[in-house]
């Protein structure tokens, strides 16, 4: 069942680089990451690649295989024709470090911009009560393994470097949605308006719901339908609903008169 496969792997660093050709053995049941490892052990000992669990749970080995953002450990070689040349490149939305390794610090910076879970002041540890149906939605989002494939494929930043400061990307907009749906999050009491933040700080408006984040998610999280669109609707509740707008206007007037 073994055969020799043709691979093209991007080698290089920030200074430049290109696709290098390799011929490498492939055995039954192997995944792309196995082949990359075989290259390391034989033809290219200094081939840089990030990986960790090799079971689709840690989200380290993100790359682009034949132009599609994927986890290398979850891409079986059997999906390719033995005659086909398999091209492996680093993620193309992030600065390259070396070979298949990219600088994903953009994501860590964005994670820091999202206000953390605010514990309710009146509940002590052990007193939290939440129903399963109330946490189902959040748990879907918390399946995220932070492989950053959604961030990589989102054209808002992939195709427009200049949007990076303004746009948090699907993963972190989903994080905002998660916290906004958390039944016990006390952000509002702490003076944090997550809906306003989504719109103003995290660039929710940049998302044009073209669903590539959902398409590439290895955890099959319905990012667009279950996180981004509901978050957009929540923002509409706040910003674009004329009744809400009018109500806020009147209340603010009242407050001004009061002081």
């Amino acid at each position, binding site marked *: 069942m073994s055969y020799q496969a043709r691979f093209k792997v991007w080698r290089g*660093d920030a200074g430049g680089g290109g696709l290098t050709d390799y011929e490498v053995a492939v*055995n*039954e*049941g*192997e*995944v792309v990451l*196995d082949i990359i490892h075989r290259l*390391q*052990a034989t033809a290219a*000992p*200094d*081939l*840089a*690649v*990030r*990986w*960790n*669990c*090799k*079971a*689709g*749970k*840690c*989200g*380290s080995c993100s790359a682009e295989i034949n132009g599609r953002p994927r986890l290398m450990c*979850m891409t*079986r070689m059997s999906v390719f024709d033995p005659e086909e040349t398999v091209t492996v490149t680093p993620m193309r939305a992030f600065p390259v*470090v*070396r*070979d298949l*390794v990219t600088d*994903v610090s953009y994501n*860590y910076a964005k*994670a*820091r911009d999202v*206000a*953390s*879970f605010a*514990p309710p002041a009146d*509940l002590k*540890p*052990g007193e*939290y*009560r*939440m*129903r*399963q149906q109330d*946490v189902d939605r*959040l*748990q879907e989002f*918390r*399946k*995220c*393994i*932070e492989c950053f494939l959604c961030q990589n494929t989102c054209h808002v930043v992939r195709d427009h470097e200049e949007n990076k400061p303004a746009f948090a990307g699907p993963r972190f907009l989903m994080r905002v949605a998660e*916290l906004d749906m*958390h039944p016990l999050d006390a952000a509002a009491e702490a003076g944090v308006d997550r809906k306003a933040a989504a719109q103003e700080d995290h660039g929710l408006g940049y998302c044009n719901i073209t669903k590539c984040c959902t398409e590439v998610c290895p955890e*099959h999280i319905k990012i667009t339908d279950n996180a981004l669109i509901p978050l957009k609707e929540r923002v509409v509740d706040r910003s674009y609903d004329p009744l809400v707008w009018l109500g806020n206007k009147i209340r603010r007037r009242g407050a001004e008169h009061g002081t």
Partner: protein
Amino acid sequence: MTRVDRQSWDVVVVGAGGAGLRAAIEAREQGLRCAVICKSLFGKAHTVMAEGGIAACMGNVNANDNWQVHFRDTLRGGKFLNDWRMAELLAREAPDRVWELETWGAVFDRTPDGRISQRNFGGHEYPRLAHVGDRTGLELIRTLQQKVVALQQEDFRRHGDHEARLKVFQECTVTRVLRERDVLSGTSRVSGVFGYERESGRFLVLEAPAVVLATGGIGKSFKVTSNSWEYTGDGHALALLAGARLVNMEFVQFHPTGMVWPPSVKGILVTESVRGDGGVLRNSDGKRFMFDYIPDVFKEKYAETEDEGDRWYTDPDHNRRPPELLPRDEVARAINSEVKAGRGSPHGGVFLDVSTRMPAEAIRRKLPSMHHQFKELADVDITAEAMEVGPTCHYVMGGVEVDPDTAAAVGVPGLFAAGEVAGGLHGSNRLGGNSLSDLLVFGRRAGLYAARYAAGVDAAGRPAVSDAEVASAEAEALRPFGAEEATGAAENPYALHQELQQSMNDLVGIIRKAPEMEEALRRLSGLRARARRAGVEGHRQFNPGWHLALDLRNMLLVSECVARAALERTESRGGHTRDDHPGMDRRWRQARLVCRLADDSTEPAAEDPALGRIRLERQEPPAIRPDLLELFEKDELKKYLTDEELTR
């Protein structure tokens, strides 16, 4: 000599898994400046692989549960070799550690009345594991990661810098714990760590009076393992090299259910929850063979018929649990025996079946990542067919000898250890679910006492990092690049690693024999000599060959500990099974095997390849506190304790 970047911190934590992050959070909350160093990206630690849950006696599902029962289960699981004080602390503090996670944003599965749901697991008398489907480890690591971020946001508001008081150095490897030697007294204390950035290859020194090791395990020394590449025994080796000692290293847990097919995923874990939720083990004859393997010490606790076992899932108060839920060592040995007797599955495992026991919908809901894992990696639909599983190296019970209350490494002031890298808690065999509570309970304690220790060192009394020590560490790290010039033919680190894994797997694996382990020690000595010639091509920037060449030192040290201790212990107990000494011997309970470095020099050239680097000592464990002993029936104690101990 290149310039080395030096920074000063109060506490340095090596490892950013559950224990490391919990320690860092605690040290930072104690008001100290804390740096965390990890080999992977922040949030990718091996903790994400934990599936089943966190054992904590909250009593949400069965109100009879309490810390005494949890303590009892833990000691039984570890065959009474556990450090009893650690087991007590674990059982007492685990619920608080879990509840605390909720206040940091963790979202566990719920009971109908809204509390944290708990599930059954092997060796636990009551449903005890707080869980999130079968991805509890991910929830744990993400929650701790997000708590770190929350603290950094706080620091940003106060100091204008996210990383002012808590910083994660990701993709860095520590190769040495540095020490300041007091010439007069001959003692030494921790002064910091030396390491390199994986990305750039640059060296860095973090100076700190307190260092917490939280590096996890050693599984990458074995061929079939559920562990990731990070598990090269770094913390174990760093501790040895810093003068600390390792205990219980002969006890290596082989998880009974790892994937066996296809070869490239061999060893990847199949969670114990599969059995906890109703999955059963069958051999090629279709027989539920576990009923034949219930050891005498557990006879009263487990069902004798399939009917009784099946009833237990719905009525646990009036039935005994099925033997599929025996502690992991028992199940792993049973599977091994079935395969050896020719009753295995086509690819050398046995069958683990949920498809005939639960509706497809329930399987997808309760075991989503198992469903996903088998579908994607093996093309097996677990809702329709049985899985093939076999034992896989999963966890090392042994580790750094620590003070049970403070997690301080014995004999090295300023060094602390928590999580898998620390030894003692689990005795000869760890119960599922106890690892995550271990990370939280002792991660917090390590952070707390490291912070107190560091706070007790005044600015003037801070240990200094000497240039000579840094230079020596640097020379050691750079050796693989000069290997060829020095000795002619360089060795390929990948080939050495494969040979090491094969040797450990074949010769010091799940079933052990004296001649095989002697052979293993011979091979290790050969590998050690060759590893000194391990050479790499290219440059220091993100060079995996170089990284592996450096990790080999650690794996070889740790493997030697395992082999020596395993050869010494002439009995079978928990994660140590001797073909030539099949029974458990009560007298051996009174001996803990302790490893230390033969030559206490940090100079790498001082090694003598022929001798081996590890010396073994026997140590008598402290007697179990009487009130804790009273939690057990006399008859049960007789199986573990010697007659003198019982009459004492």
